[in-house]
C-alpha cells in the first residue's frame, strides 16, 4: 500500500502532464486532449457518413456502408499501422505520433459515430419526415431543421459512451510511442522495475475514475432525456448501444 503512495508522490507529474516543462506534454493531460480532439473532429465525419447512409442516393449509401463495415471489421491497431504508413506518404512529410493517433481515431470513430447517428435518425417516427415534407420543406431543410435536431439530441447519451471508448482507445497510442497516460505508466515502470503491479494498478485506477465518472454522466443524461420525452408525449426510442468499440 505504501508503495503506491510513494510511487504517486514521486511520479505524479509524470502521470499528469508527462515531462511537460522540460519535454513534450504527456500523461493524462495528453490523453484527454487527444480524446477531445478526436471526438470533435470525428463527429462531423460521422454525421456526414450517417446522412450518406440514409440518403436517397444509392451510390452514396453504398460507399458509406462499405466504409463503415470495413472499419468495424478490423482492429484499431491495424488502422493505426495504416495511418502510420499512409498519411506521411499522402502528405509528403512525417507526422508526429500524436497526429498519427488523432487521424486514426478520427477515421475509426467516424464509422461508429455514423452508426450511432444513423440509429438516432431511424428511431424517429416516420411521421416527422412526412409532416415536414407535407409542410413544403425540401429534403435538405427537412434534414437540417426537423430530423437532425431531434436525432442528435436523442443520441447524446451514446455520444458520451463513445467518448469513453475514445479515451480507452487512446491507450493504444502506447504501441506507437505517443506520450499519453499508458506510456507514462510504462516509463515509471521502467524506472522502478520492481513494482509493476502497483504502477499498473495506479494506471487502471486513473482510467477507471475517469471513465466511471463519464458513465454516470451518460446514465444521468439518458434518464433526463427519457423523462423529457415522456413529458412531451412524443414516443421516441433512444438508440441502444448496440455497437462495441471498447478497447
Amino acid at each position, binding site marked *: 500500500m505504501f508503495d503506491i503512495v510513494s510511487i504517486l508522490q514521486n511520479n505524479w507529474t509524470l502521470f499528469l502532464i508527462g515531462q511537460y516543462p522540460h519535454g513534450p506534454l504527456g500523461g493524462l493531460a495528453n490523453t484527454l486532449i487527444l480524446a477531445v480532439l478526436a471526438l470533435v473532429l470525428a463527429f462531423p465525419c460521422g454525421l456526414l457518413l450517417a446522412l450518406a447512409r440514409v440518403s436517397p442516393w444509392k451510390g452514396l449509401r453504398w460507399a458509406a456502408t462499405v466504409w463503415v*463495415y*470495413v472499419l*468495424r*471489421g*478490423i*482492429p*484499431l*491497431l*491495424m488502422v493505426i*499501422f*495504416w495511418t502510420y*504508413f499512409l498519411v506521411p*506518404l499522402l502528405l509528403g512529410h512525417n507526422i508526429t505520433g500524436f497526429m498519427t493517433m488523432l487521424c486514426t481515431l478520427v477515421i475509426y470513430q467516424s464509422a461508429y459515430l455514423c452508426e450511432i447517428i444513423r440509429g438516432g435518425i431511424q428511431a424517429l417516427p416516420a411521421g416527422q419526415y412526412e409532416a415536414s415534407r407535407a409542410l413544403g420543406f425540401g429534403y435538405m431543410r427537412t434534414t437540417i431543421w426537423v430530423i437532425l435536431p431531434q436525432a442528435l439530441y436523442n443520441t447524446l447519451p451514446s455520444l458520451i459512451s463513445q467518448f*469513453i471508448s475514445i*479515451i*480507452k*482507445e487512446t*491507450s*493504444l497510442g*502506447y*504501441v506507437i510511442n505517443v506520450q499519453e497516460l*499508458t506510456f507514462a505508466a*510504462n516509463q515509471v*515502470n521502467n524506472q522502478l522495475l*520492481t*513494482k*509493476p*503491479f502497483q*504502477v*499498473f*494498478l495506479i*494506471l*487502471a485506477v486513473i*482510467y*477507471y475514475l475517469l*471513465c*466511471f465518472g463519464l*458513465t454516470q454522466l451518460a446514465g444521468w443524461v439518458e434518464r433526463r432525456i427519457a423523462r423529457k420525452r415522456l413529458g412531451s408525449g412524443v414516443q421516441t426510442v433512444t438508440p441502444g448501444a*448496440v*455497437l*462495441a*468499440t*471498447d*478497447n
Partner: protein
Amino acid sequence: MTHDFDLAAVLRGEYAELIVKGIETTLQLALYAWLLAMTLALVLVTVRLTGNKIADRLVAAYVSYHRNVPTLVQLMMWYFGVPNLLSESTQMALANYNTEFLFSVIALGLCQAAYFCEDIRSGLRAIPGGQTEASRALGLGYIRSMRYVILPQGVRNCLPSLINHTVLLFKNTSLAMAIGVVELTYATREVENYTFRAFESYLVATVVYLVFSLLLMGGGALLARHFNKALAR
C-alpha cells in the same frame, strides 16, 4: 512507394508461414478467450440472478472495472503486474511456459466476460415478468418454464449484442501483440520489417481480419434469423 505492388513478395516461403502461424494464434486466442468469457459470464449472470445483495454488488464491481479500464491496460496488468505478486518459485516455473499467450487469454477472457454478462442479463431482463408467471400458472415447473419460455426469448434478445461483442473480442486479440504474442498483427509487423513492403503486408492482415469479422457478423445474422423463425412458429 518505391517499388511496384507485389502481393507475392509477402506471401511466399517463410513470410507466408509466419502469417499463417499468426492467423492460427489469433484464432486460438479468440477461441480460448471466448470460451473462458462465456463460461464466466454464465456464472456471473447466475450469481446476479440469485438476488444476494453482496454477490450482486461484487459482480457489478467486476463488470464496472472491466468496462471502464482499457483492455490494453488490463493486459499489461496481467502480464507485467500479476506475476510479480506470485512467489519467486512460481515465477521461475512460469518462465518456462508460453506465458504471453496464457495471460492474454486470461485478460481478454475476463474482460469480455463482463460484456457478455451484461448482454445476457439485459436480454433476460427485457422479458416481461408476466412470462414467468404465466408459464408457472400453466403448470410448468421452474426448469421447464426456463427451458421452453424464458430462455428462448432471452437468447433471441441478447444474440445481437453477444455477436457484436464476439467480433469485438476477435478484434481485441490484436492487442496481445503489445505483450509479445505472435498473432496476426505481430506477424504482419515482422513481415513488414523483413520485406519493407508495408502496403502488401497490411493489406493481407486487413483482409484476413475483415473476412473473419464479416463471417462472424453474417453467421450471427443467420443465427438471429433462425431464432426469430423458431419463435414465430
